[in-house]
């Protein structure tokens, strides 16, 4: 395990209207078993001890599923490991006396709220624009009424695994939300339940994404590489096809 000492360069910004800047902190008393966020907890306790306001960061479940944690660590969304959220990253992947730079997601559609916290409500609004099946409570047929091939259910699950963290946007040089949007579009386009609203859904969601200020996809594949749930960019291709088809046929 061993003691670990680090220098952290952390983005501090009081509010969305503040300019913000990096502050440097030395942290000691760490060890390699800690998670990255536990390391941040230790730093914050040390800051409180020195009467410095602790660093605000988003986090909740700390097991990689709620999608709340969101840090750019040494220039990479969620840090250096593949398929890993910030909360699942452990300090054994860093060396003693490393300097680590920590920044918030940066995208026009994700304004900074404070320090490392950003506003991702644009994602909610995209889902609200059509990321659902219109079915009221109580009107559903029996769960086994429509058989769904195992492979189709599995593929839909792969798309549905998105946790809505926004790492795809933070990574993309255009700040595009295509991976996020295409994951939801594809999940529902694959399943029989999603067919009635398929065209309308892709149209509405893509338009909303543009309206919220996300950029366009230029197929660099960075989102797929950094996505903690390893969602495939194949879904972006599928979404684009659906989008074009739905517009061709009106």
């Amino acid at each position, binding site marked *: 395990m061993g003691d670990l000492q680090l220098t952290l360069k952390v983005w501090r910004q009081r509010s969305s209207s503040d300019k913000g800047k990096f502050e440097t902190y030395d942290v000691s008393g760490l060890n390699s078993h800690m998670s990255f966020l536990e390391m941040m907890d230790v730093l914050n306790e040390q800051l409180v001890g020195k009467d410095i306001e602790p660093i605000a960061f988003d986090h909740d479940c700390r097991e990689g599923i709620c999608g709340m944690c969101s840090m750019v660590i040494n220039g990479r969304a969620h840090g250096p490991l593949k398929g890993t959220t910030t909360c699942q990253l452990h300090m054994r992947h860093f060396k003693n006396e490393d300097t680590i730079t920590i920044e918030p997601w940066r995208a026009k559609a994700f304004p900074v709220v404070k320090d490392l916290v950003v506003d991702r409500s644009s994602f909610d609004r995209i889902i609200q624009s059509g990321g*659902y099946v219109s079915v009221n409570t109580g009107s559903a047929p029996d769960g086994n009424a429509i058989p769904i091939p195992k492979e189709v259910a599995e593929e839909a699950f792969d798309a549905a695994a998105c946790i809505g963290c926004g790492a795809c946007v933070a990574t993309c040089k255009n700040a595009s939300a295509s991976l996020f949007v295409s994951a939801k579009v594809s999940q529902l386009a694959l399943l029989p339940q999603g067919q009635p609203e398929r065209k309308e859904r892709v149209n509405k969601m893509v338009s909303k994404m543009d309206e919220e200020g996300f950029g366009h996809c230029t197929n660099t594949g960075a989102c797929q590489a950094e996505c903690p749930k390893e969602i495939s960019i194949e879904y972006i291709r599928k979404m684009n096809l659906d989008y074009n088809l739905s517009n061709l046929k009106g």
Partner: protein
Amino acid sequence: MILDNKVPEGPLELKWTKYKSKVPLVSPANKRKLEIIVVGTGLAGASAASSLAEMGYRVKCFCFQDSPRRAHSIAAQGGINAAKNYQNDGDSVYRLFYDTIKGGDYRSREANVYRLAEVSASIIDQCVAQGVPFAREYGGTLDNRSFGGVQVSRTFYARGQTGQQLLLGAYSALSRQISKGNVKMYNRHEMVEIVKIDGKARGVIVRNLLTGEFNRHFGHAVVLATGGYGNVYYLSTNAMGSNVTAAWKAYKSGAAFSNPCFTQIHPTCIPVSGEYQSKLTLMSESLRNDGRIWVPKKKGDNRPPSQIPEEERDYYLERRYPAFGNLVPRDVASRAAKERCDEGYGVGKTGLAVYLDFEDAINRLGKDIVSARYGNLFAMYDKITGDDPYSTPMRIFPAVHYTMGGLWVDYDLMTTVPGLYAIGECNFSDHGANRLGASALMQGLADGYFVLPYTIGKYLSEDIRTNPISTNHDSFTKAENNAKERNKMLLLNHGKRSVESFHRDLGRIVWDYCGMSRNEPNLIAAIDRIKELRNEFWKDVKVLGDDKTYNPELDKAGRVADFFELGELMMRDALERNESCGGHFREEFQTGEGEALRDDKKFTFASTWEFKGVDEPPVLHKEDLGFETVKPTQRSYK
């Protein structure tokens, strides 16, 4: 305070059907005029808010996270039970009801549990229709797995992320109603007070966590769907933000709180590795389908597990409980692990762990099938511990996971405050003294989709003449001032100790004295220790920052303050219950074999507490559980 559970007359299996056919309705024109406040957007809150909005009510919904999709239901792994009998293995509504009553160690209310079993099948249908990608068989039908405490396969699942998929389903339904303007959603808002007018719940005070502003909201009815209070233990499998604050404010406003000491310690979690630990991670109970739990037969045997031969391993669950083996209910499995570790057979550096071994399963099924079933859980374990469960057994230990106790509710899910409802984990109704695996998701969605939308009409049908009450009413002003005052005290205290350090100390007391086993002298001592620590908190807590920008320290301080008061109530509750049942194990009351010893003559009731003031002892009321259909017997899984 009179506890009228309002359970309808008639045979158990007809109660809900009859209720539904007779319950007063609210006309569409009137629904449009009625406003309902829903606090919380987990499975219960999101399903209730969307269903109520679909029906035509005007709904305001609040969550403290940055999006309704983050609620902690999202982290549930294993699955959701439903009495579909798709596997043709003899399942039925009655059997699910019976298993739940027995699993809860005969400390839940029959009528509510029967209704839960009855609506369970509709939940699956609803979720499939929303596009939830449940696991399927090759023929395209839905797949099932087994869970602890039962002998049928009735658990529906979506890999190890069932909670996520169900919550995203409910979130999508909620999003649809937001886009239609039927639900007004407030993210990053925390409920800090209930507003009562003429004895009825008429609104809430919420705090905008980003700006620090307090806002007043009126509602004809208020629904709390704010989850459990496991974080009173500091370390638990709950999310960091999970808290008791909304339920606690309800308690302090007159809503009775039941069975607070009934907490579930889940047997399969990743063990604590050090002081800095901020939370514990669950390894799904589904792992016990194929994993075998063991410790070395020899005390203090510190050879690596691979070098301990088969005959020197003690598969203690299989040994003690041959009928259910590794699939005994959670309370039983947790206590058995604690017993082995207390006796000195525990493994790992701390000796506070047992092995969960997949070697047999991998030999029997092959690595691919094991990986298809549990791959994501194995990966999660590997990420946290740095060990690979395909080649070495997992080390696991029990951890706080779920709270069966909560706000007392009647058959309508209404608390003792008229117009104030509690659904999902934040109420006490369905799981008695121990919850079975895959039943939390079932209850959250049952309450939100299929129960509350009916029962709330009974109350609201008598409230159609009530016009919206102005939020300038004195009661709103008073409640807001209370909340403001509390925040001011925290910010201006300028003490020396961080909020975190107080929470950690509180958690240790609650875990040591009200964890897996409890006894009278400890519980009495703990009440005083918590009081002392609470006084110290208000004297010496240090909260930096201000109340004009996002300040997570301040938010947390308010929540920890409420945990102190709750912790004390838990001790009183555990002290009062002179028996062992489910998750509540009093050392003084056990059988010769170390099993829980219930006392049905004296304790077949729900302990229901009425608040009398922070420094006054609460008053205990008893709801007699009067079993009519099931005859309580000693629970045996042997």
